[in-house]
């Protein structure tokens, strides 16, 4: 995450720390990452901020054996697509060594990377198995 830079990271801190998305009350759809305009309802959409409860199900996953440099020492790790209970799908790291499709998971708060040994530390959500 070193290439991202601190300003961009901090603009999205609500999403990364708290899984804050949006919800369109008109068509009952939750968006994560958040969308300010509902693509279905357009101008009829009634969109408001919604904090997601952080639980979901593993749809698919892959094990990363050769991670990018900032994840060095952390390999291998699993990267999964998780379908959140509210509907949206997110791609995120799984902290457990063993994971299976269909596993119930919950969001946890972990270190995502850092800007070198003397830079800022990036925190955000990963998922852990509830099974």
């Amino acid at each position: 995450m070193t290439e991202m830079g601190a300003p961009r990271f901090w603009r999205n801190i609500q999403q990364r720390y708290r899984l804050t998305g949006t919800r369109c009350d008109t068509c009952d759809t939750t968006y994560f990452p958040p969308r300010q305009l509902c693509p279905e309802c357009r101008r009829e959409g009634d969109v408001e901020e919604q904090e997601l409860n952080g639980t979901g199900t593993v749809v698919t996953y892959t094990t990363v054996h050769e991670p990018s440099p900032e994840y060095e020492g952390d390999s291998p790790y699993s990267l999964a697509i998780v379908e959140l209970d509210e509907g949206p799908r997110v791609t995120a790291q799984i902290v457990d060594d063993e994971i299976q499709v269909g596993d119930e998971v919950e969001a946890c708060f972990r270190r995502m990377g850092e800007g070198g040994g003397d830079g800022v530390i990036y925190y955000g959500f990963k998922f852990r198995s509830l099974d």
Partner: protein
Amino acid sequence: MDDTGIAGYGGYVPSLRIETREIARIWGEDPDEIENGLGVRQKSVPDLDEDTATMSVEAARRATDGEDSSRIEAIYVGSESHPYAVKPTATIVGAAIGATPGMTAADYEFACKAGTAAIQTGAGLVSSGVADRALAVGADVSQGAPGDALEYSAAAGAAAFLLGDADDAVAKLEGTTSYTSDTPDFWRREGERYPQHGERFTGKPAYFKHTINAGQNLLGELDRAPEDYSYAVFHQPNGKFPVKAAHQLGFTEEQYEAGLLSPEIGNTYSAASLLGLVAVLDEAEPDDRIFVTSFGSGAGSDAFSFRATEKIEETGDSKLRDDLTDVEHLDYAMYARHKDKIQEE
């Protein structure tokens, strides 16, 4: 401060463990002697992406589950392993639970009692009406130099307490008192990786003197006797000191066993006495009295008297029990990899 209390609480312990026998084996020590001498069977180890901030957030989320975070107007995080030398852990916790920006925040340091100092400050702010609610956290990812005695017990964990009006409390704060002196029992100079300890000072003149005096002073101020308490919780740098302190103060095994976690998780430093309090709150019944005494090197002890209310029955399990039972063991090679990673930072 008897108009305040604990409105919510949460503990977090990483799932990884290493047995003291395994560490003893690597250093050519007698595993039985080490395990029995310390009274610690295993200790918790943080995962590669866990630190004091992440564990504080996990504990804080459990403590504030179902609560309106915007009511929290003060957050204090006590630790001797804050991830930054300059940039408060409390800001990260505040953002992660949605309490920012209408709040004050600071990090505390006082060896292993910084978390109880945070509770005293938070309760004071609530009692005086400065803050509607306050969050106090004690958390540490502790390090001992390879081969040093501290390596057998230095562990990781966090505990968080939401402080509010006594009317909302699952446990009312009946009183708190402290005992502090300038004692060089344990220290770490700025920029040094590992702490140093003054062998002659660690036991009697430090841990026991401060723990016993704070405890006796509190009992005296409240005009109480040990038998008035259902539970007694102590700072637990190992499995032996808290048991000895409990007996010296007149408490029995029945009173201290529920809050004694160090044999299974090691010394979680700033979280040690507070995780014991979380475990006890998970078991407590209405009207049960809880005695807690922390200890921080340097040195000082904070003693507290809590009394569980009817609301204790409405709170769900803090999930700490899951953290204590659902564990994965590391061998020393894997453990060393975790340690190396932590040291780089």
